[in-house]
């Protein structure tokens, strides 16, 4: 569907929009799509107008604008007028990353986020939780830094294979 200019937008369905959005890679971690990342909350098609509800990941993430633009461009490719609305009424959570998305992250060397619990994370949890190395699978890993190269990631070190790795934060 990429690059194809549609001439009959009235037949456009919400499923087709979802499929098209699923082709957009995350600007920073291209192995995962925006749909896998869970930033698309809802899609509504009203004749030639497509409203996409976008729920941002980390608020300081410089990729947010790129994501918005990419989604708008994709809707235009489908021959429709985009309305990409940033929604804040219900916050994005790392739990919104799909199972397929988590597996793609792991395969690319990023440890996917631990599931979110009702309690806020603690230092003890980050230091002693069973965080698994994405390279060798060992849980003998230690927290190096709560912060990392981007707002969404922490730095850990694996004692099993002696590799540093990036761990997605749970939010």
């Amino acid at each position, binding site marked *: 569907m990429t690059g194809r200019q549609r001439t009959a937008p009235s037949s456009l369905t919400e499923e087709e929009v979802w499929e098209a959005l699923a082709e957009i890679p995350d600007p920073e971690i291209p192995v995962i799509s925006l749909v896998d990342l869970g930033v698309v909350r809802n899609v509504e098609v009203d004749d030639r107008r497509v409203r996409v509800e976008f729920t941002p990941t980390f608020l300081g993430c410089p990729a947010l604008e790129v994501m918005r633009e990419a989604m708008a461009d994709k809707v235009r490719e489908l021959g429709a007028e985009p309305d990409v609305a940033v*929604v804040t009424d219900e916050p994005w959570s790392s739990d919104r990353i799909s199972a397929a998305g988590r597996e793609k992250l792991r395969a690319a060397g990023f440890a996917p986020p631990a599931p979110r619990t009702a309690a806020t994370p603690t230092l003890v949890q*980050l230091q002693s939780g069973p965080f698994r190395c994405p390279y060798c699978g060992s849980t003998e890993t230690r927290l190096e830094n709560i912060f990392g190269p981007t707002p969404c990631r922490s*730095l850990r070190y694996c004692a099993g294979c002696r590799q540093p790795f990036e761990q997605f934060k749970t939010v």
Partner: protein
Amino acid sequence: MRRAYAAHRVPVGRVSVTPTAEQLLAIADDELILGWRDSEWTGIAPFLEEDVAFSSIAQNEIGHARALYELAARELGTTADELAFDRAPQEYRCAPLVELRLPDWADTIARHWLYELADELRLQVLKTSDDRDVAGLAEKIDREEAYHRIHAQMWADRLAGEPRFEAAVERLWPAALAALPEDLRARLAERVGRDVARGPQPGALARGNHTAELPELWEEMTMVRRSVPGAAW
């Protein structure tokens, strides 16, 4: 250049500010200015991991400011960029606590710890807002701030009892207290183990007043934007 800037400037002081927008602006300004101060450690923090940490915290705080400005801008009929950069220093609503330039690491950690504790109390209130956008955004910000709090508390625990850190907390305490609305101050004092009665001198550190360090920061922060008023980047 200053005149061109003044003509371009959005007259926020003259539009009617609803309490909600005012409250959002105060928090947004705190986050923007503190984010700016935190970013001053990029490249010169005492060690590499803290360089990464403070750069990341700064990025988060400025991101929070942007999201809050966007909500406020909707009500005020302006834009986040105009709110962040096109006001005069005296129009900012940030607390003096965040304005201070603190080149001493102990002072920076003391402020970081006090601010994160105060910010959590204020976010808890915001999360109960009737406005779903405000409540949802507060929840989102709070989830990110949880990591700042872990980081700040880790340092506070590590430095507890160190004379230099304790002196810094002592010095910054009145400004931290003044950063919160009165009804939240007792709770902050409880968490920090201090006396709420030892508050700031009237007027000196209250929100609405500014230190001489804000205009200096503002000059630097808005320099590029003022250099070509109205430019699209």
